[in-house]
């Protein structure tokens, strides 16, 4: 009996000795490359890390992963869906062809990415007060984040109406059961947010902080909100505040302000910073024609081209300088800097040719090769850039001072403020009169007539900058403008239109291009993504979906 006890003891020693010999492995393992939340939100550097995370563009650079802070996404969603043009691969056609449905990918992408950023904002705001740092800086950072969140919510409301609304990080259960909050309530909240944040923000930033929200940027966002809400008096006063800051100016250049050389121009009120190779954008791949190594995603319509006045400052319907058989002559200089025209535009020493009778072998941008209009989006093509076209580093100018001036004028008119020549000279004429454009000054003071001029000016000046859908929706003219046939380049003289064979043309010899069918009763509000309603039974759907 004694022997067997000794044996047992020895055995146990052996078994556990084997373990002891090698050192029992600890089962406490911590992440090697992430911060544990328990130890985060303590110091100023934590706050900076968290703030940067809020600014990071959620959708990244991938096509289809739409995000409000990415230029490419804005061109897809807010320009290629309008009367300014379209995109060749039908990635966003459903927004105006009468088929928009709740399962549509782009709707889901923008919704999701926007809420991801809101969640990061909420997380920042929920935790930042625990950080030990200079209280002024803390307030300032918090204000920045509140502005970003407000911009996100504004866009959600603008396109979806009532939306799920939260100012705190949700639990999974809360997120899966949240109801939609009335749009008016969300808008009230965010206007108040912006009003509170604006005084806490600096008017100007140091060179190192360029790109972070400033007072002017926040005011300009508030201006957009108020315009959309038709709160004209408040909008006018807000825009006046921006002008009175005295730090923005119309840049004499027009083409370069959309390129890398135009970065940190005094005209930029709000930019989303890009950095070549490290934080680049495939913008140029999408914009450049095939013959210039790009994918030529976007095609402006002739309907946009027609909006550009002649150099005498008159629209083409009135100007004597306009020759309907030679429509590209004598036009607003911005036309040639915004749109690539067959046989006219030269980029990097190479002529852009898109005519259907050109040799398709020689010219890859020839219209019949792809669903194109024959026009190229040229505004952002940066001829000096030599890096990878998928990694372009030019900033995305989200709000320019030109917009501020034109919006100021619009809210003056709409709020019933008397229009004077001084007002015109301080706004629209500054925009038209920049050194590189030099269009004749506007002298019209009649509010109705001026509105037509202003809207045309706005469309031309801000063409393809991501504002057209916003304008069409808030003016409630999308159902009129986005229903019907759109044309592309002029292919043949009107006299030959009836017999022209290569492609379909209209009576004036313009290439027939696309048809849209915007539904007035449905498409002004986008559908709540089906995937959201699949998980959350409390989410109602917008009418018509």
């Amino acid at each position, binding site marked *: 009996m004694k022997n067997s006890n000794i044996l047992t003891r020895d*055995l146990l020693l052996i*078994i*556990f000795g084997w*373990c002891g010999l*090698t050192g029992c*492995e*600890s*089962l406490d*393992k911590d*992440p*090697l*490359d*992430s*911060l*544990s*939340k328990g130890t985060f939100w303590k110091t100023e550097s934590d706050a900076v*890390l*968290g703030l*940067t*995370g*809020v600014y*990071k*563009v959620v959708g990244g650079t991938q096509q289809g992963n739409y995000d409000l802070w990415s230029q490419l996404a804005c061109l897809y969603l807010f320009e290629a869906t309008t009367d300014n043009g379209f995109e060749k691969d*039908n990635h966003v*056609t*459903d927004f105006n062809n009468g*088929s928009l449905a709740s399962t549509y*990918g782009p709707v889901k992408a923008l919704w999701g990415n926007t*809420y*991801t*950023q809101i969640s990061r904002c*909420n*997380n920042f705001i929920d935790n930042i007060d625990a950080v030990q740092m200079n209280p002024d800086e803390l307030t300032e950072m918090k204000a920045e984040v509140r502005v970003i969140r407000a911009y996100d919510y504004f866009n959600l409301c603008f396109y979806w109406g009532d939306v799920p609304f939260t100012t705190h*990080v*949700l639990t*999974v259960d809360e*997120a899966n059961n949240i109801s939609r909050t009335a749009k008016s309530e969300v808008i009230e909240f965010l206007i108040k947010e912006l009003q509170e944040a604006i005084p806490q923000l600096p008017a100007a930033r140091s*060179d*190192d*902080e*360029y790109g972070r929200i400033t007072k002017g940027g926040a005011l300009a966002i508030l201006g957009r909100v108020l315009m959309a809400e038709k709160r004209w008096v408040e909008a006018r006063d807000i825009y006046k505040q921006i002008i009175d800051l005295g730090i923005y100016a119309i840049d004499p250049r027009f083409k370069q302000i959309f390129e890398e050389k135009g*970065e940190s121009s005094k005209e930029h009120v709000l930019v989303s*910073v890009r*950095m*070549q190779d*490290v*934080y680049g954008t495939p913008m140029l791949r999408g914009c450049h024609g*095939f013959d210039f*190594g790009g994918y030529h995603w976007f095609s402006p319509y002739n309907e946009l081209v027609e909006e550009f006045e002649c150099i005498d400052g008159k629209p083409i319907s009135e100007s004597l300088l306009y020759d309907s058989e030679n429509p590209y002559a004598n036009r607003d200089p911005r036309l040639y800097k915004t749109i690539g025209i067959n046989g006219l535009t030269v980029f990097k020493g*190479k002529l852009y040719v898109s005519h259907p009778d050109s040799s398709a072998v020689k010219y890859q941008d020839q219209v*019949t090769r792809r*669903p194109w209009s024959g026009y190229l989006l040229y505004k952002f093509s940066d001829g000096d850039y030599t*890096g*990878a076209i*998928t990694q372009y580093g030019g900033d995305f100018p989200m709000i320019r001072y030109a917009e501020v001036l034109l919006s100021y004028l619009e809210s003056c008119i709409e709020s019933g403020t008397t229009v004077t020549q001084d007002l015109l000279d301080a706004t629209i004429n500054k925009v038209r009169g920049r050194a590189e454009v030099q269009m004749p000054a506007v002298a019209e003071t009649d509010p109705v007539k001026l509105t037509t001029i202003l809207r045309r000016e706005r469309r031309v000046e801000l063409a393809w900058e991501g504002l057209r859908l916003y304008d069409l929706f808030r003016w409630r003219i999308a159902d009129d403008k986005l229903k019907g046939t759109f044309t592309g380049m002029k292919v043949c003289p009107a006299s030959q239109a009836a017999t022209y064979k*290569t492609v*379909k043309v209209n009576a004036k010899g313009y290439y027939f291009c696309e048809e849209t069918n915007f539904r007035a009763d449905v498409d002004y509000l986008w559908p709540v993504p089906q*995937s*959201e309603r*699949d998980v959350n039974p409390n989410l109602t759907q917008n009418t018509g979906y």
Partner: protein
Amino acid sequence: MRLTLFMFLASFIQLTANNSYAQKTKLSVDLKNASIESVLLTIENQSAYKFIYNKETVDVESRVNIQQKEKSIKEILDILLVENGISYTFYGNQVLLTKDKVANPLQQNQTVLGKVNDAAGAPLPGVTVVVKGSTYGTITNTDGNYSITSVSDDAILIFSFVGMRTQEISVAGRTSIHVVMTEDAIGIEEVVAVGYGTQKKINLTGAIATINEKDIEKLNVTQPSQLLAGLASGITVTQSSGQPGKDGASLRIRGLGTFSSAGTSPLVLIDGISSDLNYINANDIESISILKDAASAAIYGTRAANGVILIETKKGKEGVTKVTYQGNFGFQKPAEIPKIVDSWVYAEMINEALRNAGSNQQYTEADIAKFKSGEDPDNYPNKRHYDDLVESGNGFQSEHYLNFTGGNAKNSYLFSVGYLDQNGFIDETNHNHYNVLFNANTKISDNFSLKVKFQGRTGTTTEPTTIRSGDGADGLLDYALKIPNTIAGKKSDGYYGQQTGFTIEGWMDSEAFIESSSNRMDVSAGFEWDIVKSLKLTGLAGYNYDNTKYKRFWPTLVVDQTYTEKPSELTETRTENSLLTLQSFLNFNKTIGIHEFHVLVGFSQESNTNSWLQASRDNFPNNALYEISAGAPSNQLNSGSGYEWALKSFFGRINYILNGKYLLEANTRYDGSSRFPESKRWGLFPSVSAGWIVSQEEFFQSKIVNHLKVRASWGKLGNQNIGNYPYQQIMTLGVNAPFGVSEKIYSGTAATVVPSTNITWESTRVINAGMDIGLGNKVNASIDIYDKLTSDILYNVTASAVLGMTPSVQNAGVVSNRGIDLNLQHRNKIGDFTYSISGNFSYVKNEVKELATVTQDISSGLFVGHSLQSIYGYVADGLFVDQTDVNSYAVQPRVAAPGDIKLMDIGGPEGVPDGKVNADYDRKIIGNQFPKYSYGLTFTPGYKNFDLFINLYGVAGVNKILGGFADNAFYQGSNPQEWMMDRWTKENPNPNASYPRFLIVGGGEQQFYQSTFVMQDASFLRISNIQLGYTFPKIVVERINVSGLYVFVGVKNPFTFDHFRKGWDPEMGSGYPPARYFNAGLNINF
């Protein structure tokens, strides 16, 4: 200790020794105060002689001095042995040593003669006859006769022969013993590997499938994971690519236990240490055990939920050094590829698509005529990008395997090297690897032995790639499917035809490549210590290390005058992983009367660390330089990370056998894992099982059934393979953004995951009932039914995007798998004709039982009451014939036109069809992606020296949607395929056409919706192997001085029967097509 390595090299050199060897060979020995044994060893090392002796009767420990130069073996042995009272006898090169009779007058030693017949009375040559407890023995000659000298009166002779029941017969003073060998009932005597040990198959109470060497040898697989297809029931094997190096298969045991990231891959242990099946050479595998139920797998606790696969590698065996060479070579061709339409057909079709949309025609009649005529191949080509790509490589493959094995009573070893070189049918796709295995066992004393293993593999997979578009051969294939034949390849001016810069031929001609290589080493050392009789301690320490290197180079490429792909870019990633395993366990075996006990207790711990580092640069000075430092420093990027986990476990097993017929077994494991919070860290996984060998009962008297066993088991298993830190609240780093006039990137962080603070492992409860039947030694069958319920499934609760974060997994799901596994083996011999058939069949019903608080999660394909991987979508009702049809039918989700897919209105807000088809009410489960049935059959007939091996497998009750370029014409410019010719047109408004009207589609169209229209039946039956072999007769073989020679020719994947999309393989789907492989090879034994 013997220098094993030296010995086998020496043996190898002397393979060519012939019969006159004893006379010719002169040996020199010069040793002082050496044991006889060491002298014998020296001789063995110098020559091909092997000495056989029983150390208990022959004294080889005596010390001698011997100095002989250039003497014959006999001269040396006379001096060395005879003077020390030892006799010797030559058997070829084997020398048998016995104690001199004269020196031991008391011992009664004699010669025993006899004949061995089979049950039919035919003589059996080649039967091994050995004296029990020694290595001393002989083999029966062609007439079945044997003669064995120096056998003591009380010796026991063991007669063994492959496929026959081994017999032990006491000599008991007889000098003549005749034996009748009977066929072994298949597998009953077989010993199978179980967790931390082995067990006799007859005593098993769990559900274990085994695959042995014999089947493995025939298959000549390139990745061991392919081995299991069709060979065992209850295992579903899916190979998703035919590309060299990527042709490994995924394995699922008994359905899909979980839908979580914990995964459904079984735990694989090679010689007791967790590893990866594909890291070893299939030729090195001795046996594979698949532990399917909880009774057999519970001893692996928290990692066993998906089943466990135990691999035993071949070990050295006592006896003369044996050398085996196996070699085969052949070539592969694509087995099934889609047929792409010719350029002029493409032109007509895209015109049709444009017409359907009311748009302008892209090609004129003249253009189409030019395509047809082929007069201007630069501008109007018919370039078959896809066909040319899959025919660009030579597909040549060769494999060599060399194996040395040998040993004596104390030491044994096995050493093998393998080499595989595999070219794909796409040029520049290649995989090659070297395997080495070294297994050595040594007995330090009678009760203590050590074993050492080294297993290594170095492999490289290379492939061409697109530049910046899609990685590797898959990316090229994808674009080859996309780029129409109307776009030229390399043109006469040296430039390439391109579609948005994409050029298959340009990419293939360029220096673009992806190379992935891995170096793997598994080393282990262990001991077995028989502390006292019936008590054994086993210890094992293993270290697995692997590093992988991934390198991708995009050169600059001048595509044409207008487009140059640039800048060049190199990305390199290196990963290191190491796993340290320590385990020790104690076995206790005791038989008291009719009670037999086996007890096992043990401890193990594993710790794993992983780290990776990635770097990239661009703008290389030219396309011939692609090492990181050659790139421009201006855009150098790097990243890296790592993780750790650890596992600690205690385990035990008790077997109790009463009277050889009542079997009882209990297993348990207590696991602690670092992946769980402290409060949930430890878990207990028990199992019990019982068996009853009915055929052992006295009342059981059947002439037909000679073996009948029923068994049942219950147990719990776990699955811990979730993220490494799921319970911890973490802020993800790397959420960076730039600021500043002179841009600078700032580090950022964000909470991207909602942690689950009380997470614990998934647990799987398995109930199994089974029966094994043996019929007249010719048929062996087993049937198992099981009910497997996995609960606490780590479910990534689908959260509304409003959450803005990904919820971490929670223990929130329940899945059940119920099924039947059937196995049948039959073998027979009719004259010179022999055959064996083994078949298996499995059925599994997979069902989600619970899903947190919801009943469905559409985006993950999870629906309570339905199978995992369900396909959820619309029901299609053919195509719209005309506008009247459109107008009179339910309103479609998109504005419909004639020729569009017609989706059925199956519901509405009131529960009845509402005249409108929408996502809320008109989708349902239309199919599932995991097969319900799988089956396999192996048929091996043989006639005289010829043998044939046919292996087939299949699955049924499974669906698949190909999607993308494979399913859609004119999607981002993609090609139509020939099957799409059967489409709707105005002229032929066929509602049942295979394809809707042609349109240039963007991805939002109805044909991209999941519907029954695009879903395919992915069931198939694949004849996976046919191999014909010939074994050369001994008389021929002996003339060329080898002991065995076998040659074969075969074809892999010759036929597949299915109803799947034409040109596509139902198993592989899109991507690299399946390969058909023709080969020939030989095996030589020296």
